[in-house]
């Protein structure tokens, strides 16, 4: 049988090509002329991210060919993918900004930070558009490997290296789960393409047991990436140990990309067995919200607290995923945008308060913050209120959307658990606001304003507020991005 090579339609993966190309350029230039401070590389990386975003925007307005997948059914061409690419690129842009500021302070401004960040971004965007389990796996590895190295980027700091190793070991473990899931899925369906699996599973006489095992393992693999309980163990250590801009970028980007792929796999490939997988998703969602919220209370380091908060938020997004209806998909998408804005904003505050490196991350350092810098205090309060889901912030609307989808799907019990978890969570967000607003500062020195984090803070705060007051701006374009066929 003659092998017919697939048509090479590269336009739909142009954003990834731009990102990888710029990353390689940075690597080459940095190898030839090791930079001092790396500011030039930051600019190049930033331009690269903007370039990729420009390509995505163009594709949004000029829909691609009628084919819904390219490269032999490997990559999906739909607005769902484009939407997530934009969100991820936004996270990357802020990651570059925050990184440039942070590395300049610590004197670790090496060019490979930007190269690795762009590679990770390319992996994330590819993950969002993968239409085949093999590509999902490839993209996961691309982003994970880059992040393992980024986590250990401060090689003089033991915590950073330890976090890197932990992340790597547990990440490798989860990759094995995921691969096993792919193998079983292939066994059940005879194909690894998402559409193909769906078709095979909906046919008569299929081995449901095998498909369920495959689905379960894939969900486990994703749960590692999005930090869902009980696969969240790595999160606090890694978020705390990694350099703060890396934490910010990965807390936002990995979760967004991981959920993009999770949503695609569960709604498309596992659509026919979604009813059977529902209890698993509901259980993971409920556990994640409850455990994340409760454990966050016991933390006295702000990065660890935000790590548990980010775990809890994975649970809230899962509420929308478990709803398994179109409202759930668009609700989860909205949630992820809101989450990315508020978690990036929170970590940007952490970076400014730390001044240099990883200092001042204990909760005590936030005492009297509002008096030492009123604007920073107000921004922190805004992000925390949004994380807690208090109107009029994006976090509130996001919760309303996923809860509505879940109620519609008959999951009232899960929503009750979710709102109770929100109340628990409010406790520790409020505690930080108490420290910032109602306690006397330990240091009286004013926290200085900084340009690069200032931009990141401004963008994140604007998104958090605007999406809370005028959510229609995002929800309307979401309506046709939340339709998933591939």
């Amino acid at each position: 049988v003659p092998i017919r090579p697939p048509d090479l339609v590269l336009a739909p993966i142009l954003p990834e090509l731009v990102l990888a190309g710029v990353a390689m350029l940075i690597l080459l230039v940095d190898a030839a002329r090791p930079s001092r401070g790396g500011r030039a590389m930051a600019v190049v990386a930033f331009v690269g991210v903007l370039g990729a975003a420009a390509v995505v925007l163009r594709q949004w307005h000029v829909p691609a060919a009628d084919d819904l997948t390219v490269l032999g059914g490997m990559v999906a061409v739909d607005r769902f993918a484009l939407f997530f690419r934009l969100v991820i690129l936004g996270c990357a842009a802020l990651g570059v900004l925050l990184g440039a500021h942070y590395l300049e302070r610590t004197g670790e401004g090496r060019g490979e930070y930007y190269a690795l960040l762009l590679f990770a971004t390319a992996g994330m965007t590819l993950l969002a558009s993968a239409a085949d389990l093999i590509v999902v796996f490839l993209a996961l590895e691309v982003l994970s490997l880059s992040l393992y190295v980024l986590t250990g980027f401060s090689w003089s700091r033991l915590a950073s290296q330890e976090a890197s190793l932990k992340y790597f070991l547990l990440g490798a473990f989860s990759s094995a789960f995921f691969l096993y899931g792919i193998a079983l899925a292939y066994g059940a369906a005879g194909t690894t393409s998402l559409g193909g699996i769906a078709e095979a599973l909906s046919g008569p006489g299929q081995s449901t047991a095998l498909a369920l095992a495959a689905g379960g393992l894939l969900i486990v693999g994703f749960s590692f990436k999005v930090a869902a309980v009980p696969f969240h163990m790595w999160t606090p250590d890694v978020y705390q140990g990694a350099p703060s801009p890396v934490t910010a970028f990965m807390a936002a980007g990995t979760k967004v990309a991981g959920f993009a792929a999770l949503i695609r796999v569960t709604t498309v490939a596992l659509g026919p067995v979604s009813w059977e997988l529902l209890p698993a998703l509901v259980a993971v969602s409920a556990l994640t919200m409850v455990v994340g919220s409760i454990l966050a209370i016991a933390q006295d380091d702000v990065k660890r607290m935000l790590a548990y908060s980010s775990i809890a938020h994975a649970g809230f997004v899962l509420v929308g995923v478990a709803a398994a209806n179109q409202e759930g998909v668009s609700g989860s998408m909205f949630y992820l945008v809101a989450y990315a804005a508020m978690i990036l904003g929170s970590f940007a505050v952490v970076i400014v308060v730390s001044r240099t490196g990883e200092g001042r991350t204990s909760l005590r350092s936030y005492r009297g913050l509002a008096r030492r810098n009123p604007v920073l205090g107000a921004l922190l309060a805004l992000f925390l209120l949004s994380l807690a889901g208090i109107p009029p912030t994006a976090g509130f609307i996001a919760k309303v959307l996923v809860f509505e989808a879940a109620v519609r799907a008959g999951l009232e019990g899960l929503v009750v658990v979710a709102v109770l978890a929100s109340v628990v969570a409010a406790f520790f967000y409020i505690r930080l606001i108490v420290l910032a607003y109602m306690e006397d500062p330990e240091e009286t020195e004013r926290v200085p304003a900084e340009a690069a984090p200032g931009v990141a803070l401004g963008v994140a705060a604007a998104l958090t507020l605007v999406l809370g007051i005028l959510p229609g701006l995002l929800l309307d374009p979401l309506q046709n991005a939340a339709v998933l066929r591939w």
Partner: protein
Amino acid sequence: VTGGFPWLTVTVFLPLVGAVALLAAAPLPRRRPEAGGFAGEDPWRWLALLVSIATFVVSLGILTEFRAEPGFQLVEDLDWIGPLNIRYVLGVDGISLFMVLLTTFLMPLAILASWRVDRQVPYFMASLLALETAVLGAFVALDLLLFFVFFEGLLFPMYLVIGIWGSGRRVYAAVKFFLFTMAGSALLLVAILFLAFRAESALGQVTFDLRELVGMDLPAATARWLFLAFFLAFAVKVPLFPLHTWLPDAHTEAPTAGSVILAGVLLKIGAYGLIRFNLTLFPGASEDFRGLVITLAVIGIVYGAVVALIQTDIKRLVAYSSVSHLGFVVMGIFAGTLQGMSGGVIQMVNHGLSTGALFLLVGLLYDRTHTRDLDRLGGLARRTPVLAGFFLVVALSSLGLPGLNGFVGEFLILLGTFDASRLPAVIGATGVILSAIYLLWAYQRSMHGDLPSELESTPDLSVREYAFMVPIVLAIVAIGVFPKPLLDRIEPAADRHVRLIAVDPASADAVRATGGG
């Protein structure tokens, strides 16, 4: 959309505009105010005062446009969140009208009373104004989710006001307030979403619009669950026994303006929510739970009064008196008679005025004596006759002396409840007696008897203090003498609501007879 001037939107958001302006102006240079004086102060107080007065003036526009009819008026209806059909719907009826006016009336007085707050003044004033927007929004929102946004939105500014500018255990009180209220309203969100979703099968599309949801058919068991979810949220706010424990702490530790707004307006959102949402949306379940609610209300009346009786902290005393008085309001609302409902609504206004005034007076006392301990006060009537006079009038109003405002509401409530169910009315009436005891006793202990030597040189009211005491006392007397304008506007709406759960829908005449005072 009626197409006319957007009275409600302007009233609701004017304070927020002022708050934003204050935050923007916060970096301006500051000067410390002279104690008790008007002149030579930084601009923020004046800005806040002007904005709040302007809001009051605009809200008078609502009053002039209002017709004494049962339905919602001045309705504004815009798309907000299209895909979920969540709308920006505002409107007033006879019940919310006076809640709005009460809010806009009390706010300038509260700001005047806070003239001597000297820490982070622009932020304090901005918090108060943001709070006003949230409260006003909650009173006029007719879309359930929009209501929830305002309802939750008022938490944070109030929390700041208590936690930053409060006294003593302010942080504890602020966190307790926040968590109690948030926990109470968590299930409210689920219930709202559930209700809106049920509308899809019952009415053809998802809607959060109260006007469309009214009269929707719900299975009795579902309606009961939803009733409880709504009830929990509002019962915490009212607060109804046994969910009241946040209130004494919050009221006591809040600064004067915070206590005035908290007691005067915030608690009313709970009672208002019970009328607007519980009774309207779940009339069947409201009847089922009437016995329970009235029992809790009666326990609250007696318990609040008894606990108030043994307080030595005068601010705590007033706080517990609120628990007692709000019990009356809830009893009236759930009595199922027009008198009860009208009385409940007018008592909400009266309690806002009387208790607001009491907290203002406690603030005046504290400013002068730096104590709230009744054992350390006494004989002040000799040094501050005007203050004592105001205190007496307000105390008499609060205990329901005929001729002052408190009487009208309490009388109607007791009358209305007696018609429906005798025992609660009889037990509740003891609350009236007890309130006379604890209020007059508090007056006696602070104003009569021996004057402690350290209070020898206590000054009487200043011009600024007259400026906020005179309007509120005038309002108290005016409503007491001539409540008809209020009743005329409240009655149609009250009648509409009471028919939903009425024991005796035709009992509309007695109220007119008593309405003239």
